[in-house]
């Protein structure tokens, strides 16, 4: 197993290299560069812009710039400097707890999604083709069908325009109310965090909810049709024990790999929701670097997302082997 992990990890390097090349190519095709916006500022002369281009290396041909960037990584572990902040790329992406918040937001969302979808999936499977099964499926898919940006905005509007939460001293968007942002942690602050995070759970969570519910339903139905379940029933075990002790345990196994596969979504799947719900995530930093054409930050972010994708796949494989002893790598 260990050799498998080591081999897969080493194998990520060439993949990341190719991804970085593709990213760089895309950035090069993008029109203009970081300085283009300054050109329409009547107060700035073309000479100053040319000087800045030289300072930032933007006057060099693309391949040369790629090479310098690559060399910086190899020799100094330096992934480049942001044009905007003049700070290292990963500082700009992760500053001020952004990385931590990205994980907290997405892990809690994932937990909530699973905690709701799995029981509903079980319910759906045990009530197959009943009205309740259809209803669950319908609402699952309905959640999936709402474009996230629309859903998030309408949700916030409902809170403000219809429920007037402001009159109860509650804020919307972000992670905390104003008074808690810079306050030390307390139960009140935690409560306030929960108040701010549930719209994120709802908006991001509903996207994955329907899929997970359907997977769980299908997996449990498959398991229930197996012979050992019949045996268990024949032995006279109660239906509760048959389902929860025998069937569900085995039905959940294949879903474990989904857990790994959803890891990359944790860092790159909720840009739109994060933008409207005002969550401080790495993706938002990526998007603002994209609009500002802060080249090396874009590169750094794409590599980071890519790395997560690969790690997610690896974790999925490992988890699968872990829950299912029949699977062996090497």
């Amino acid at each position, binding site marked *: 197993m260990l050799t498998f992990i080591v081999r897969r990890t080493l194998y990520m390097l060439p993949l990341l290299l190719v991804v970085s090349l593709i990213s760089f190519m895309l950035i090069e095709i*993008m*029109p*203009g*560069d970081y300085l*283009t*916006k*300054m*050109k*329409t*500022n*009547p*107060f*700035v*002369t*073309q000479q*100053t812009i040319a*000087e*800045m281009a030289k*300072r930032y290396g933007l006057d060099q041909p693309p391949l040369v710039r790629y090479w310098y960037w690559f060399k910086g990584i190899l020799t100094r572990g330096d992934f480049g400097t942001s044009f*905007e*902040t*003049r*700070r290292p790329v990963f*500082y700009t992406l992760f*500053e*001020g*707890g*952004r990385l931590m918040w990205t994980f907290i937001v997405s892990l809690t969302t994932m937990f909530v999604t699973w905690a709701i979808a799995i029981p509903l999936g079980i319910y759906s499977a045990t009530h197959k083709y009943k009205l309740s099964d259809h209803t669950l499926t319908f609402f699952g898919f309905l959640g999936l069908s709402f474009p996230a940006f629309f859903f998030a*905005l309408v949700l*916030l*509007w409902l*809170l*403000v*325009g219809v429920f007037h*939460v*402001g*009159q109860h001293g509650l*804020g*919307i*968007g*972000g*992670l*905390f*109310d*104003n008074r808690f*942002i*810079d306050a030390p942690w307390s139960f009140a602050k935690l409560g306030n965090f929960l108040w701010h995070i549930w719209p994120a759970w709802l908006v991001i969570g509903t996207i994955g909810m329907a899929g997970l519910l359907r997977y769980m339903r299908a997996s449990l139905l498959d398991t229930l049709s197996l012979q050992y379940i019949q045996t268990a029933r024949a032995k006279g075990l109660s239906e509760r024990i048959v389902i929860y002790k025998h069937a569900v345990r085995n039905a959940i196994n294949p879903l474990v790999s989904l857990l790994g596969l959803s890891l990359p979504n944790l860092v790159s799947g909720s840009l739109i929701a*994060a*933008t*409207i719900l*005002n*969550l*401080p*995530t790495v993706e*938002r*930093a990526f998007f*603002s670097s994209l609009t500002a*054409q802060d080249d090396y930050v874009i590169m750094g972010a794409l590599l980071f997302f890519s790395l997560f994708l690969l790690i997610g796949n690896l974790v999925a494989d490992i988890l699968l082997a872990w829950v299912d002893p029949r699977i062996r790598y090497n």
Partner: protein
Amino acid sequence: MKRLIVILAALTAILMIPVAVSAQGYDKQPADAVIVPLGVAGTDYAALEPGVRGGTVYVGTISNPKKWNAVTAHETSTTQYTNIMQPGLVNLNPITAGYDPELAKSWEVSDENKVITFKLRQGLKWSDGTPFTADDVVFSFMDLYLNEDVETDTRDVLQLPDGNFPVVEKVDDYTVKVVCSVAFRPILNSMTANILPKHKLEQFVHKLHPEVAADAFNQVWGLDTNPKDLVGMGAFMVESYTPDLNVVMKRNPYYYHYDPKGTQLPYLDKYVVLTVASQDVLLLKYQNGEIDCFAPRPQDIPILKPEEKQKNLTVLVNKEMPGFGTTWVVLNWDTQDTKYRELFRNLKFRQALAHLFDKDTMIRNLFNGLAVPQWSPVSYLSPYYAGREKYAGPVTEKNAVVFPYDLEKAAALLDEIGLKDTNGDGYRDFADGTPVEIELNTNAGNTTREGACLIIADDAKKVNLKVTTAFIDFNVLVNRLMGQEDYKAIYLGLTGGTEPHSGANVYMSTGGLHAWHYSAATGDITEVEKRVDELTNLAAAEFDLDKVFEYYKEYQIILSQDLGFLYTINQAFVYSYYNRIGNAQVASPNATPSGNNGLTMDFIFRKS
């Protein structure tokens, strides 16, 4: 014994209080303090009232700061903080848009207008308690803004017409001299540049300390700097920053502005800027009471207006006061196709096009009625705006150059220059029969500009002129505008300010943004352009403001008649604030340079 210790401790504590207080600010009001005449009849501030100390005001913005360095910053997301932290020698009056003395107490122009001598305020201190002297001013100009190692765009506005830079010299601890090689009135505008603390920053300047790298200063005061290390003289200093959430600023105990009652300004203890990802969430947060004031979009006004009474807020709609900047259509006089080149250089064609602009519809449909037609290259708010009676006089618009929406007139002009439909496709053609087709570009995603283009194209169709629209990426558009790619027509806007000379880069024939006619720089110059160059130079060298006004009046009229830029409309200033905030009613675009959000942070306060 124990009791004695307690008493001693208590005594020490009591004795410490005044010490602690004096360490937190001035012992007494400095002699040269700025007294803001709030509520004093006969002054610009008569309509305001002295406030009460304490409290926090929350506002919102949509992007994070990029650094805390005022010199290297070139985006408002950063300067909205640095301008509060570090004032300049002079400042724009938020109410009249004239120049007020700020760190300077007064100034004097001498030696054929080539030397400006600034008397500095005495007894002022930086936010860390260090005294402020002429050395800080000389350092800021000579070692930062005018230092080739330092990356700054302020250097550009300091450049004199002859290519030289002014020299800033120390006369004594509280007097500095700005020496120019030629008389240059707009240099006063550049004296709004932020003054930075020498004692804090000197160590990072390669010129003064050769041991540090040449690029060192450009990295200083980044976002990872401990806010305690940031030093300034402004109303507020940054206390903390949480990316994507907020920037907290706390009052500077050494601020040198006082109200007439002798209360030190600012009134507020804290000023918090929430970072919000979109304008819509900003509106929601405002409706929800989380932020106290904000500048709504025109479309938000019908939502906020009905809530005025119930939520106790004020929506300030000043249709007479558009913001800074210009919006226009430009035709490329240097386009590759000679037929179009000739056409665009024909004043009658440009006039025909100007008569096609249905500005009323644009204002009604795109700005919900909250915009004004624009005709001049100079901002409405500028004291030099030609719509005024005299320098800084009331706006009468009697000099306005207006091309009213008139399809018949446009059609007649097009007929007159020989554009007729010869091939029967319903659209006008050149005299030789080639069809006329003009592609109008603007940046994709800007709904109001896209909308204006669609309206223009639709009207052109009514006079059988084929105008198509293509909405392209902003950067591609800029490349076209800069003359790096060919184009026919572009709809775009430029930022502006109160000083018309800031448009020199655009309107002078040699300007880097002389977008309609770059070939003017290489000798292909028109009579109008010659005169504009002349007037610009005359106005720059003249210190008699009434004469300057006359120069700029002619400048505006001939530029507008010549239609290099065909001006369209400009959004009116709208603002909204909860009535719990005092003195917010003077919010205006003028206040923007000294603190974003249209508010003047000095004297707003929270009513108890």
